């Protein structure tokens, strides 16, 4: 009886779960069909059969009809608008500043609410496999604290859209024209995302065990699928503006929507944002855990939030490690698309920003490492690694200093005379790219070493080949460091440019191999290892501040790089196709950008505080007033 009831319920939920992808497909199909029906091309075809109409007595000017393709093009060709400065509404405040703030806030929260469900789903899956309820509870808590982030994202998204239509009407009209019905699909996906989100969150306890858990996991998967689709669609607008495709040189649409979306920078941006979102989301929820840890007095609670903070940091740093490589790919594609754009970003006016970037990434790596080192006090087996940590710290600091040494910058004449040449005579060789490549790769390797030491600190290997394994691991690290320095110095300074660039790929491969080796060797070596007790909650309070430094640096970094990404278009709305003639069509000075970035970071901080506060509100309950209680009893 109960069994059949269960099966029936299961079937219904399963059916809905299966029907939704179908529905998505159906909507896509319908939109496609609708587009085909009203499309200009079809109208043209319907008219053609009438045949030629000629004036009597006039010689046929053109007997052969133009090929259909050309006719179609002529009908559809509509060049990008060329607004003059007067066409931009002036509301007394810089339009760019308004759109900047709203866009960045939308992006922050968008990134957060895309990332959190992603690792929540993974943690939930881990919970299913380990049968450890703690994972499930933690995943649920992550979801809880980011829930109203979805509303905040929507609020900022709506405001951003309004602001754009108000302040940049010509640009938006053009983009609407280019992307056409894609906007409807985009809007439609929000319904799906909201649906999955609320069912996923509120159905957590209803669908907690057995087969129903799999229904719940499927819902989570669909939530992520709709979220990611939304992201890649929005990315296509940004990349279209940077590197337009599917349009001709005056901006008239000549390709279909897929050709418009699939620009040369689309996939690099997709990957870069996907990875960065995870790191960002992990860092933000880590701050929540740190805050709860610091405010809690109860050792059980402290242990729980310590573990939550550790997991968040783990997610953030792990996602952060491959990020430079995704960035490298993006930059390479930008250079391949347009040398000029690449030089504007890396060697021109924006190049100074990469010094700020180095400061931020240095902060992130140092904070992440510091947190790992502090966390070793949780276990008794970590004494072994104390000495190594000092070496890692030294490597990190030295590499960091090399990294922030400026080099490839366009200098003014007075700056050149101040430096006594375009390169500093002592620091010059440290400022060039090979030196920086060495520094970055060594920093990543050092961070991975911290990570690996931390993972090892509560275990003792019991396999017989452990000394061999350790010797191999040491050799992997030493060999990699030697190889990276060799590649950088030898090819970077003593051969030509082509080899210099080629060798940086070998450096990256070496770094990645260290990570792969480390993971594989440790997985095998500590398979049946003796596990020493871990004392969650036994960590100094100051370590928690690293968990605040991470999200602040991430937020700042994201805003900074977003500004660079948008600025490489220089004075174009849509690069090479639609000029920006607004009063704000210049690249602002770094200090101004810094102010804007700080403004959005602080705003984001306040919004996140609000988000956490609301999440905690649902857990607190007002006690029934004493007087009423007494009155009732009397």
């Amino acid at each position: 009886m109960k069994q059949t009831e269960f099966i029936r319920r299961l079937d219904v939920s399963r059916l809905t779960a299966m029907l939704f992808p179908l529905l998505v497909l159906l909507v896509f199909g319908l939109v496609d069909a609708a587009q085909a029906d009203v499309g200009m091309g079809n109208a043209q075809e319907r008219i053609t059969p009438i045949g030629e109409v000629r004036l009597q007595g006039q010689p046929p000017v053109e007997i052969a009809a133009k090929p259909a393709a050309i006719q179609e093009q002529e009908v559809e060709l509509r060049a990008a608008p060329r607004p003059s400065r007067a066409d931009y509404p002036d509301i007394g405040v810089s339009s760019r500043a308004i759109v900047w703030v709203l866009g960045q806030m939308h992006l922050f929260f968008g990134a957060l609410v895309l990332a959190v469900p992603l690792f929540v789903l993974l943690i939930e899956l881990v919970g299913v496999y380990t049968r450890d309820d703690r994972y499930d509870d933690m995943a649920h808590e992550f979801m809880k604290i980011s829930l109203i982030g979805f509303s905040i994202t929507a609020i900022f998204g709506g405001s951003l859209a309004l602001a754009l239509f108000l302040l940049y009407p010509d640009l938006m009209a053009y983009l609407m024209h280019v992307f056409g019905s894609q906007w409807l699909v985009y809007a439609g996906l929000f319904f799906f995302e909201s649906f999955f989100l609320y069912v996923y969150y509120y159905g957590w306890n209803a669908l907690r065990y057995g087969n129903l858990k799999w229904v719940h996991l499927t819902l989570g998967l669909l939530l992520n699928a709709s979220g990611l689709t939304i992201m890649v669609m929005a990315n296509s607008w940004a990349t279209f503006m940077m590197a337009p495709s599917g349009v001709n040189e005056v901006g008239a649409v000549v390709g279909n929507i897929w050709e418009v979306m699939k620009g040369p920078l689309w996939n690099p941006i997709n990957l870069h944002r996907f990875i960065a979102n995870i790191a960002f989301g992990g860092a933000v929820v880590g701050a929540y855990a740190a805050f709860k840890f610091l405010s809690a007095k109860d050792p059980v609670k402290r242990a729980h939030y310590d573990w939550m903070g550790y997991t968040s940091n783990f997610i953030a740093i792990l996602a952060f490690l491959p990020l430079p490589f995704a960035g490298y790919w993006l930059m390479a594609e930008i250079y391949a698309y347009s040398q000029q754009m690449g030089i504007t970003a890396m060697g021109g006016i924006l190049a100074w920003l990469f010094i700020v970037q180095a400061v931020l990434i240095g902060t992130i790596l140092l904070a992440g490492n510091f947190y790992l080192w502090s966390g070793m006090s949780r276990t008794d087996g970590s004494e072994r690694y104390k000495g190594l940590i000092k070496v890692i710290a030294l490597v990190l600091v030295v590499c960091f200093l090399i990294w922030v040494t400026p080099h490839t910058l366009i200098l003014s004449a007075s700056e050149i005379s101040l430096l006594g040449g375009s390169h500093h005579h002592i620091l010059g060789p440290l400022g060039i790219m090979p030196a920086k490549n060495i520094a970055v790769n060594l920093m990543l390797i050092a961070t991975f070493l911290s990570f690996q030491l931390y993972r090892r600190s509560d275990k003792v290997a019991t396999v017989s080949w452990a000394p061999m394994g350790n010797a191999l691991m040491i050799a992997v690290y030493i060999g990699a460091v030697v190889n990276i320095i060799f590649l950088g110095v030898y090819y970077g300074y003593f051969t030509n440019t082509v080899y210099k660039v080629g060798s940086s790929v070998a450096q990256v491969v070496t770094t990645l191999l260290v990570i792969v080796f480390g993971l594989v060797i440790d997985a095998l070596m500590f398979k049946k290892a003796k596990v020493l007790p871990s004392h969650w909650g036994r960590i100094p309070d100051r370590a928690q501040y690293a968990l605040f430094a991470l999200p602040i640096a991430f937020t700042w970094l994201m805003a900074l790089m977003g500004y660079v990404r948008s600025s490489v278009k220089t004075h174009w709305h849509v690069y090479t196709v639609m000029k920006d003639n607004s009063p704000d069509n210049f690249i602002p000075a770094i200090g101004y950008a810094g102010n804007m970035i700080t403004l959005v970071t602080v705003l984001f901080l306040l919004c996140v505080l609000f988000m956490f506060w609301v999440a905690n509100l649902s857990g607190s309950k007002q006690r029934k007033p004493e007087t009423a209680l007494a009155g009732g009893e009397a």
Partner: protein
Amino acid sequence: MSVLAKTLGFSLGLTLLFTLVTYLLPQIKGEAPVDKKVDLGSLTMESFIVLGDEIFHNKGTCTLCHQPAPLGRAPDIAGEDMVALANKHLADERYQGDAKNAEEYIRESLIHPGKYVVAGWGKKGSNDTESPMPGVDKPPIQLTPVEIDAVIAWLQAKDGGEVTVPLPAVEAAAEAASTATTGDSGKAPAPAATAEEALAKYACASCHAMDSNDALVGPGLVDIGSRLSKEQLRQSIVDPNAVVAEGFPPAMPLDFASRMTVSELEMIVNYLAEKK
């Protein structure tokens, strides 16, 4: 102190620290290039001469070759009195052109540089009968008549000579001078579609003979494909000073890497590699 105050204070402090870093760096704005509209009402001869000066040094790319010895690959225009020199050349018996005065002579040598080649500066092997200079009214320099007038005005004025060029008239007018203020981030001209177009766009033939091995400013390229590999060709264009052909000055422009699109570079490299 409460936990909230401490953590908020820490976070804000860190944010301000990052902001401070941006204040320590040079504060440069990247202005968008402006199409310079010449306002005839307020245009004075003085500002017209200044315009000519700017065109000579920027848009005209004249200083790529016209520099004082030993850097120069053409007469040092900025360092000599051009009016006096023009009159001297007009009086030379070798002069074959139609110019009657210094202004006409300068304009003629800008548009048809081959009419009179200064002794010693002709294409190598032409015995000073052919000029290596491209006409400034043709791509890639493409100066408008108003801009050419401005350059002449500057050339006449810089050594205290009398300016005989008239200020631009209404019909020749306004539109003209789009002197990009930032040469780097300026406009992106349409990329070339074929190798020949690309070679013309970057005026390779003004220094290299395409169908002979004659040495002009640079080596002839008729059989360059048999001498250099594709990689070497690419390097010679992108980083010309890495290897300079023996017996030639390191004279090739260094900015092709930033001006050419990738496909243009590839077309040129492939085209040259075929020349065997």
